[in-house]
């Protein structure tokens, strides 16, 4: 009994201490000049609350006393614990594997497809055959030579059923065979031409090249924890839940990724990288401010102003290629009626969402693609924008037409059978801004008499439940460099199950888009599919975020970002001091 009481009291005390520590950390702008801070640079350990002046300078904890990086390691904050570092097997690929694998082709900072491990390539047989001419003298991080046989091995493992790669269908489409013509020529043979093949090969780490010899030496499992390949860095050690350590690939050459903004001809100057895994964004930012983390890959919007005003912080902006949207279950009442879905599209005002939930750091989106995706068209976006201008009157009209009227005067609409218009909007616990966005939408829809109940669902359960159609509506995101994402999201048979919006004309347009390589012709089909999606309204597109990479310019200089692929270039970066 006593223990229960104790638990209660202790819990309360912990909360108070946590809060007090937070305040102390907040106001203790600098450690007292007389005492040298003995070790522990954690922000909660700063104590002098008594001497706090009311003048708040939110630039906070100056880490002048904490010596940055004695052993010259660049520390990058990372929020998402990876499942595996083998990109061909991972459900999630990002910078942690992007810097390990060089690819056949690349996309430069202007969005053009440029050479990579392949010097040149030729598309023939209507897109069913692509012949790549490879560079000579490619070596991986351990000096293993890379020739056509390695390319064959890598891609055949990628598409092999026993690899069960989650990203293979998306990256290489219907690739059926890789033929070695000679040591420096490989031929990719497809069952059907695959429209986005070059941009996929250029951007997906799972299309990265590694040595067959190295892979066979370490085996499947160790390759997933310590991949080493042709990219600028390789993994030395991965301590789950804590960090991933990288060392520079001494055999790396600029020609593997000849973007004009990269100057360094050889391997990067910084010899060691560490990705520290910190899932809590608040902790991550305070570690960054304390100087224990040097690079933030995605500044939380709440901290943007504070970090922008910090002279020690440099920020690089870009627009993410991810669309955040409200998706409907188009098979379920009441969202099986197009007019109802359109009414909600009219009733959502993106401006306050972006201003309040994202601190203005996003652009409103009305169509299915965002400007940083290949295949985006301003014309189509404008069409969608004109069609769905915020208009409450129109929304009410459409709802009345569909039979939704406030029959008992309680402010909530009822259908002809007296059922109230009430629905659950699911949000994922993995999205920091989702509760804010959802609550703003909730109050906006209340204005047209729709009651929204918000339900938070754990992210891994989220996609599972949604794909089973258990939802009415949800708030989520989708993203890919290329318009091929529409095929993935909306094709009735080959796509993932989300909105259950199935139309034969949409399937046809998506299939043609998927199998056309010529960019101009392909664009026609992309826009056709987009129009069907805009008119049919299975979702309400909301916004794309402006992302900021931030780094401490007192520790490092010269980090670059490719705005198209959103890859970080460490090639020219140097540690200071």
């Amino acid at each position, binding site marked *: 009994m006593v223990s229960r*009481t104790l638990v209660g009291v202790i819990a*309360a005390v912990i909360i108070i201490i946590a809060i007090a520590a937070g305040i102390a950390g907040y106001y203790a702008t600098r450690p007292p000049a007389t005492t040298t801070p003995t070790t522990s640079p954690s922000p909660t350990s700063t104590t002098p609350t008594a001497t706090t002046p009311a003048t708040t300078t939110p630039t906070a904890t100056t880490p002048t006393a904490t010596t940055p990086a004695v052993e010259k390691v660049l520390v990058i904050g990372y929020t998402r614990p990876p499942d595996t570092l083998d990109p061909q097997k991972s459900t999630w690929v990002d910078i942690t594997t992007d810097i390990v694998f060089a690819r056949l082709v690349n996309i430069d900072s202007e969005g053009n497809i440029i050479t990579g491990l392949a010097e040149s390539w030729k598309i023939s047989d209507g897109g069913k055959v692509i012949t790549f001419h490879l560079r000579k003298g490619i070596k991986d991080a351990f000096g293993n030579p890379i020739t056509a046989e390695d390319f064959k091995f890598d891609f055949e493992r990628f598409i092999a059923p026993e690899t069960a790669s989650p990203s293979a269908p998306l990256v290489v489409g219907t690739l059926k065979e890789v033929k070695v013509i000679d040591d420096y020529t490989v031929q990719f043979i497809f069952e059907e031409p695959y429209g986005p093949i070059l941009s996929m090969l250029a951007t997906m780490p799972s299309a990265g090249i590694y040595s067959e010899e190295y892979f066979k030496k370490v085996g499947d499992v160790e390759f997933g924890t310590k991949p080493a390949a042709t990219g600028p860095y390789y993994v030395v050690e991965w301590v789950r839940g804590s960090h991933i350590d990288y060392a520079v690939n001494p055999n790396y050459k600029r020609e593997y990724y000849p973007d004009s903004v990269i100057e360094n001809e050889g391997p990067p100057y910084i010899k060691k990288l560490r990705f520290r895994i910190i899932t809590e964004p608040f902790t991550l930012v305070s570690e960054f401010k304390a100087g224990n983390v040097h690079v933030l890959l995605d500044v939380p919007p709440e901290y943007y102003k504070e970090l922008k005003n910090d002279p020690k912080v440099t920020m690089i902006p870009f627009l993410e290629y991810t669309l955040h949207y409200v998706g409907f279950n188009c098979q379920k009442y009441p969202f099986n009626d197009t007019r109802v879905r359109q009414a909600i599209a009219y009733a959502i005002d993106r401006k306050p969402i972006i201003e309040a939930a994202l601190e203005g750091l996003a652009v409103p989106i009305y169509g299915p693609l965002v400007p940083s995706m290949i295949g985006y068209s301003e014309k189509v976006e404008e069409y969608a924008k004109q069609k769905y201008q915020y208009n409450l009157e129109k929304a009410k009209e459409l709802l009345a037409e569909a039979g939704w009227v406030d029959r008992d005067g309680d402010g909530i609409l009822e259908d002809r059978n007296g059922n109230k218009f009430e629905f659950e909007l699911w949000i994922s616990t993995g999205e920091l801004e989702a*509760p804010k966005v959802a609550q703003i939408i909730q109050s906006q829809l209340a204005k047209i008499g729709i009651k929204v*109940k918000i339900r938070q669902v754990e992210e891994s359960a989220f996609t599972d439940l949604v794909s089973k159609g258990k939802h009415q509506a949800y708030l989520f995101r989708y993203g890919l460099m290329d318009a091929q994402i529409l095929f993935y999201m909306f094709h009735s048979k080959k796509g993932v199950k989300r909105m259950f919006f199935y139309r034969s004309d949409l399937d046809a347009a998506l299939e043609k888009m998927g199998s056309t390589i010529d960019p101009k012709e392909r664009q026609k089909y992309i826009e056709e599919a987009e129009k069907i999606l805009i008119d049919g309204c299975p979702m309400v597109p909301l916004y794309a975020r402006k992302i900021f990479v931030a780094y401490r310019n007192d520790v490092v200089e010269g980090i670059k970002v490719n705005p198209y692929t959103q890859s970080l270039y460490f090639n020219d970066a140097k540690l200071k001091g």
Partner: protein
Amino acid sequence: MTEEKRRAVGVSMWKLTWRRFRKNKLAMTGLVILCIIIAIAILAPVIAPYSPVEQHLEDRLQPPSSKYLFGTDELGRDILSRVLYGTQIALRVGVLVALISAAIGVTLGLISGYYGGIVDEVLMRIVDIVWSFPSLILALAIVSILGPGLINAMVAIALTMWASYARIVRGETLSVREELYIEAARAIGESDIRILFSYILPNVMSSILVLITYNIPSAIIVAASLSFLGLGAQPPTPDWGLMLSTARTYLTIAPWYSIFPGVAIMITVLAFNFIGDGLRDAIQPERVS
């Protein structure tokens, strides 16, 4: 005061308990605070300056001021109003969970203690199993099966807390059932149910009452923890745990946002615990050394 003295003076046990309770300063402080909290819960719609869900998007994360006494949250809602309305939720959760778990636990405890034998054996092993889990962990598991939401969270917490009632009530029933008046009741042909609820239950009531006052704050804490983890109350409910969960993101930018709901939880839990301690000492003075 001894048993003899009590009989001699001729006052009822409850009156005597109240007399002892009144002398306990800490317990009285708890009681006064609790009365204030209950008043706040009832009067929240009257005294709250704003609606707890009304958004003022232009006034986001404002520090405390004359317009917003406790400041505003990330959607410009008045934190004072939300904390005041949160009282209703915290009390409802605490009291309902304690009552549900008491109902389950007391019934099973009475049956177990009265009948004994195989029934007792089976029930007590179940109690051991439930008892061996930390209540938050067990509640987490149950909520993930039921799905998130305040009601489900309350059911889950009740299902983790009944075991302590069952165990205590069983122990007391074991001794009470040997008393002569129970034998007498049996002799005059009273039904088992009547014996359990009219003869035994009143005799174990005081322990149950103490347990309930201890249970309410634990329930509030566990419910707040579940909400903190996104499994309890869903936005925009003005739940203290949920507020804390959101507020931690803004700890450096808007410290007031965490302070007020945190302090509210602390005060409420402490008030109940003071009362619980006072009540225990007053009812079972022999346990006070």
